Structures are given as structure tokens and as C-alpha cells.
């Protein structure tokens, strides 16, 4: 178990290093200069050069990369160019709305998706199953910005139930303002959850042990909850983890549609302004979330499903 974890962590570290390199190279490849962009028409060549030098942007790229790695490792991430703030405090301000949106969206997807998946699996190949499949397929095929717009029009403007945009104050204010984007996000995620869970439920239901458990005279609900579902949920968790990258993408778009001051908006601005350190840090952090989630689901899976553990062998 220890060796497995160590090896898995090692792989993740290599991935993170690659990630940092990729994001550094990518943004430095992009034409445009953060200082000139920030100063606008007032920018003179000298002024740009002076400020660039004061921010260390005139150093050779390998040195800048080295500094960037140092910042990453120290955990304070350095200073944003355009926001004239430390990146860590910027992220601190913007993290909560994004996390709340992702969490809320996932919750919506699970609350709608899990029952649908169960019904779909238990009534496989009936018209109910087909109906659910068409519903989830439609929800999957909807562009997230489009469903967001429509939801905003219907529930925000026509019915006036929820705000069309912005980020509220207080717990309920935040919940209210995030409900529509979360539903849009949840809908886009629904298909993945329903299908994965449906197919793993069906897969597990077809396993012999389920028949064995039924033969013991357990109630259907007991068989389902404590045996089938427990075995079927793990692939869904894994898929959710894999899809975090997709969720982050959806969040970037939704934050634009609903004007939520989250990391997606920040990233968008950072790319536009060529705020090198900010783009690099945000990219590496977003990638790290994906890498770490994959890492932890792998390890979690090894804990939950003992067969996955290396060295586990049957006689």
C-alpha cells in the first residue's frame, strides 16, 4: 500500500512539474505584454521597460521559470501584475465563489442524477429508461452558456424567482445567486453521472454475489443499498474526479454568463491581460486539482476496493 501510494504520488509530481512547464511556456509564447496592456495608450517604451524590469519580466526565461517554481513551492505564488496584489490573496477572494459553484453544481447533478440512474438501471430497456436516457442526452448536448441563458430568462426575468446575475451576500444570498448557474452546470454533468452509475449498477447487479445475497433472504433495499450501490458508486466517483477539468471549463464559461467573481473570471482576465504569474499559477492550481483528485480517488479506491491494492493477490 505504501509503495503503491509512493509510486502514485511520484507520478503525480512529475505531472505537476510538466504542468508548470507547459503553462509557463504557453503563456510566454503568447504575444502581448502585460505592462503595455495595463498602461494602455499612455504606455511609452521606456515606461514599459522600467516597470517590466521592476517586476523581473526582463530576466531570461529559464530564470523566470525557476523563480516561478520557487513561488509555487513557497506557496505564496508571488505578485499579480495587473491586480497589484499578491496572487494568494487574489485566489483567496475568488476561490469561494468558484468552489461553491462547482460544489453546488455537482450536488445538483447528484441529487437529480443518482435517482435517475437507479431507476434507469432497475428499469433497464423500458420506456422509463429510454426516457431518462433521452433527457440526460439532451442535457448533455446543451451548450452550458445556452442553458444558462435560458434558465436566466425563464427563472430570472420571466418568473423573477432568482437573480439573473451576480454573486449575493450571506449564505442564502449566495445560494440564490448560484442556483441558476449550478443547475446549468449540473445539467451538463448529469449525463456522465447517470450513465456511469447506471452501467455500473447494472454491472454489479449482474454479478453473482448479488444473487448470492438475494438468496440469503435480504430485502431488496438492503441488497441494493449495502451491496449493489456501495460497489457501483466508486466508478462514478472516479468519473466525477476525471471530469473536474471539464467542470472547471464549464465554470469559466458560466462565470462569464452569470458574472460571478470567481477564479474562472480571474483566469479569463489574466489571460487577456497577459498577467504571466497569475495565468501560470491559476493553470497549475487548476491542473493540480485534477491531478490531486485523480491521485486521491486512486488511493481512495485502493482503500474502498481492496482488490485494487497492489500486492493484493488471490490464492
Amino acid at each position, binding site marked *: 500500500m505504501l509503495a503503491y501510494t509512493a509510486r502514485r504520488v511520484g507520478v503525480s509530481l512529475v505531472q505537476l512539474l510538466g504542468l508548470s512547464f507547459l503553462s509557463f511556456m504557453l503563456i510566454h509564447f503568447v504575444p502581448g*505584454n502585460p505592462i503595455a496592456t495595463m498602461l494602455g495608450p499612455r504606455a511609452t517604451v521606456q515606461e514599459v521597460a522600467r516597470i517590466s524590469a521592476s517586476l523581473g519580466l526582463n530576466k531570461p526565461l529559464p530564470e523566470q521559470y525557476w523563480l516561478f517554481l520557487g513561488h509555487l513551492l513557497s506557496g505564496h505564488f508571488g505578485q499579480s501584475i495587473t491586480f497589484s496584489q499578491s496572487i494568494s490573496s487574489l485566489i483567496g477572494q475568488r476561490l469561494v465563489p468558484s468552489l461553491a459553484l462547482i460544489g453546488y453544481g455537482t450536488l445538483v447533478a447528484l441529487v437529480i442524477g443518482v435517482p435517475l440512474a437507479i431507476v434507469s438501471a432497475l428499469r433497464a430497456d423500458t420506456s422509463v429508461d429510454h426516457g431518462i436516457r433521452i433527457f440526460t442526452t439532451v442535457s448533455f448536448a446543451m451548450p452550458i452558456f445556452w442553458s444558462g441563458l435560458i434558465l436566466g430568462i425563464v427563472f*430570472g426575468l420571466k418568473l423573477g424567482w432568482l437573480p*439573473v*446575475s*451576480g454573486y449575493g451576500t450571506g449564505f442564502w444570498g449566495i445560494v440564490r445567486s448560484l442556483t441558476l448557474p449550478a443547475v446549468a452546470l449540473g445539467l451538463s454533468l448529469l449525463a456522465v453521472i447517470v450513465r456511469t452509475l447506471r452501467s455500473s449498477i447494472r454491472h454489479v447487479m449482474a454479478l453473482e454475489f448479488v444473487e448470492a445475497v438475494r438468496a440469503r433472504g435480504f430485502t431488496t433495499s438492503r441488497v441494493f443499498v449495502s451491496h449493489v450501490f456501495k460497489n457501483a458508486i466508486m466508478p462514478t466517483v472516479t468519473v466525477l474526479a476525471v471530469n473536474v477539468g471539464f467542470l472547471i471549463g464549464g465554470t469559466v464559461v458560466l462565470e462569464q454568463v452569470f458574472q460571478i*467573481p470567481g477564479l474562472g473570471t480571474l483566469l479569463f482576465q489574466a489571460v*487577456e491581460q497577459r498577467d504571466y504569474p497569475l495565468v501560470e499559477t491559476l493553470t497549475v492550481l487548476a491542473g493540480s486539482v485534477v491531478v490531486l483528485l485523480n491521485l486521491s480517488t486512486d488511493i481512495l479506491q485502493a482503500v474502498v476496493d481492496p482488490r485494487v491494492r497492489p500486492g493484493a493477490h488471490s490464492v
Partner: protein
Amino acid sequence: MALATVVASCSLVLGVVPISASAAGGINTSAACKGTPVKGGSLTYARQTGPVTLNNFYPTNGNGDIFADTLLYQGLVQPDPKGTTQNVVPAVAKSWTVSPDGLTYTFNLRPGIKFSNGTPVTAADVVFSLNYFANPKLDETAVLAGGFKSASVVNASTVKMTLSAPTPGILYNMSIFDAFIVPKALVTKQGKAFWNNPVGTGPFKLSKWVRGSYITFVRNPYYWEPGLPYLDKVTYQYASNDNTRLLDLENNQAQIADGIPFTSVQNVKSNSNLTLQPAKVPYWVGLWMNFQRKPFQDLNVRKAMQYAIDKATINKTVFQGLGTIPNSVLPQLKYDAPNSVVKPYTFDLAMAKSLMAKSAYPKGFTVTLQYPSGYSEYTNLVLILQAELAAIGITVKLVSMDQATMTAQYMKGKYDLTFPYAEFTSDVTVPDEYATFVTTYAGGGYSFFSWWNNPTIAKMVTTFTHTASESSRAVQWPKIQAAMMAQTPFINIMDLPFLNAHRNNVCGTYLNPLGADSLQYTWIAK
């Protein structure tokens, strides 16, 4: 004010409406606003971009910062807050005198004026702020302090400022964000932290700031204009998405919105709850020609292009008739002569063709035009330009770019034709700043990166900017304007207003001549 700001994604601000300098343009004259102003109430303002710093000396997000600063702080002088004239009017200084040689300015502070925390504004605070203004390490736009030599305390309520050379434009430069007056003691004591909870002499003070989302201001109880401001509370709600701002407005989630896109003008006009408010500002669509490219060195080519571009049609189809056909290669500025003195280029294809025939390129040539992506106005505009220039043999290849790339290419001189800034406005109402920029070739400026080099006009500009006499300046400028128009090193496609919209019951929504509002006259009718 407000230089090009790079606004996220697809927003755009292109303003509208040919208004004369009278501010009547969009000020609400509805019945509800005829009555006596009512005190109290709160207002939500949907703005396309928000502040990333409240440090007025070092804005990093253009109008996003500046528009918030304008509620919080004031300078010794201010641009006419009602936008009626392009002059500066008293603010923290109740009055001032200028020595005949134009080198010494004496400011008399407004008696009893206080910061929003209740402490009096002293001459020491003013001197401190002016020194800040002139320090390039502290002030991002210290270039605007050109000519400043020193400032000193005369007595508790009098400040003397001396210049190294007559530079009358500096008074206008001091009316904007870069020379706002801040309390010396607090800034010295708190350092950077001051800007998180700043105090100034503006009509409002900071209440709550959720970065990236909204910022709330409340009435400054110590504000010097008696009985003002009317509003208790103002919230700037940020929405870079044009549609969101409009929806917020239609939904009454906001009562004013800025940056109304052109495509939505009809939408706003057809909504009986809303009033469209175009405001005259030095806002223009500047087309740059790279003088490092041979064809543009040919005056015949440049003039042919001016004649070939049908600005009236562009105004009608792209800007819905709300723009003004310019008679300058720069935006509308103080001292500009009327059309009767300096004529605009009017569409004349025959003339354009004959100029091309006379040029070194009678068969035309091929160039690329870089334009900002994400602005539907620009997209429509460049298509028309492409067609119109094709008529005189100039083949234009269109390349859309995001703002950062475009700016970088522009500063490196990697362009043929470009719009350097999608949202291009002058910081000040007087021509000094831009005239200097566009004629300063040496020192890496390359005449605003156009590589145009005309020592004659440059000399005229230098003389103009260092003339102390207002009347002499008013005589000099139209000549420069005409000379530049004749040389046409740039093409000003259109002068545009800022476009705001507000709900009908919002009254007194004045913008100053630079497009900023301080909202002290704004009130909400019942």
C-alpha cells in the same frame, strides 16, 4: 480620462449620438425629474468593469479603477461635473491664480473642507499629493506631471505650485485621478493598506468592496457641496457581459448601466422604462497607418483613404447615426475649431481615385488591417472599410486579434493598419496630452507608434503646450488641428459618445466631459 481598457470578452463600449457640448443629450427630462430633488435612497449601477485597485495614483484597470476613484476623491480642480463645458472648475481649491509668466500657481483651499473621515484637508495634504503626482515611482501617469517643479505650503489654506516651464495643460492633468488629494498622515502611516480603506473628499465613501463583484459606497457626510449628495448609497455592480447589464437594468436589479452596446440602442429606446443617455467625451475610433510602410508615407495615399471612407454611411450603419464625423485626426478636444474652419473629409470617390492615380501607387497595394476581436461594431466597421478601400485599389486583409496581442504588435510596429485600442479616449479635455504623444518621435515614442515624423507640426505643438495664455492657445490649436488634418497621419473614423442608460425615475445623471460621474446630483424620483 480612461484610456483604453481591456474589457473581458465580448463587451464593448462604443458610444453614440451627435450631441453638441450641451449636456442635455441624455439628462432625464421626464416628468418625474421635474420636481424638487429627493434626498435618500440607494442606487445600483451596472458597470462593465470594476476596480482592481483604489490607488488613484496607480490604476491598473483603466476606467474600472478610475470610475470608482471619482466617487471617492477629488483634485484641487475638477472637470465640469455636469459636463456642460470642457473647462476645469474648482473642487478642493476654491480658487486659484496663475502668475503672468505661467510658472506659478497659487491655490486657495476651500474653507472648512474635510476628508470623508472628518479630518480637515490641509495645505500639507495637498503638497504631499502633488509630490505623489509628480513621482514616477509612485504615479503611473507621472508623465502628465510634465513641467511640475515643486509645491509648497504658503499657509494652512494656501498652496503654491511652481513649474519649470509654462505648461498650462497641467491644470487639466491635475483635474483627474492622477492628482487627487489624499490625507498625508494616513497614507504615510498606513502605506499600501490605505488603499483598501481610503478616504478622500469625493461625495461618497467606501462601504464594502467585494473584489470582482461589486463595490458599495455611502454618502460622505463631510462632503463640501451643501445638501449633496442626494443618494444614501451607491452600488457598482460589475458585469462585463453587455447582455447581463441590460438585463439587470430591464429587471430593475440595476437603475443605471454604462457601456450600452450599439446593437442594443434600439432595445433601450423601445423600452418605455429606460432612458438612453449619450454623453460627449473625447472618445474616437482611431485608425493607425504605419509610416514604416512605404505606401503610407505618401500623402496622396493617406488623403485618398480619407476621401474613400464614407463616414456618413459608417455612422448610419455601424453607429446608428449617433457618431460625429470628425474634423480632426484626434478626438473632440477643447479649442477644436468648428467644421466651418477645419473641414472634415467628406466622401468623394472620384477625388480619392484621382489622388491614388497621382500617388506612387496608382495600381494600389495590399495591406493587412488588425482589429480587435469581440466587438461587433469593429467587425462591421472593418468590412465596410475593406469594401471602400478596395474601390481605390487598396486590398485589405482583415486580421482580428485580442487586445493584448494587438497592442503588442502595435508597439513593436508590426502592423500596416491597426486600431491600437478598441476603446480609445483621451485622459483630459485639452489637446496637450495627445498632441504631444502623436508628435513625439524621439525617445522610443515614435509619434504614438505611427513612425510619423513631422518636425514642423511637432514644433507647433511644443509651442502650444508651453503657451501660458489661454487666448493664444485657442488661436494656435485650430492651426495645428488643420495642419494635422491636412497631413492626416491618422484617420479618425468617428467621434463617439459614451452611452449610458438609466431607468426613468433616476434623475440628475450627469457625466463630466471625460465620461465619469460622481453622482452627487443624482436622485431617485418617487
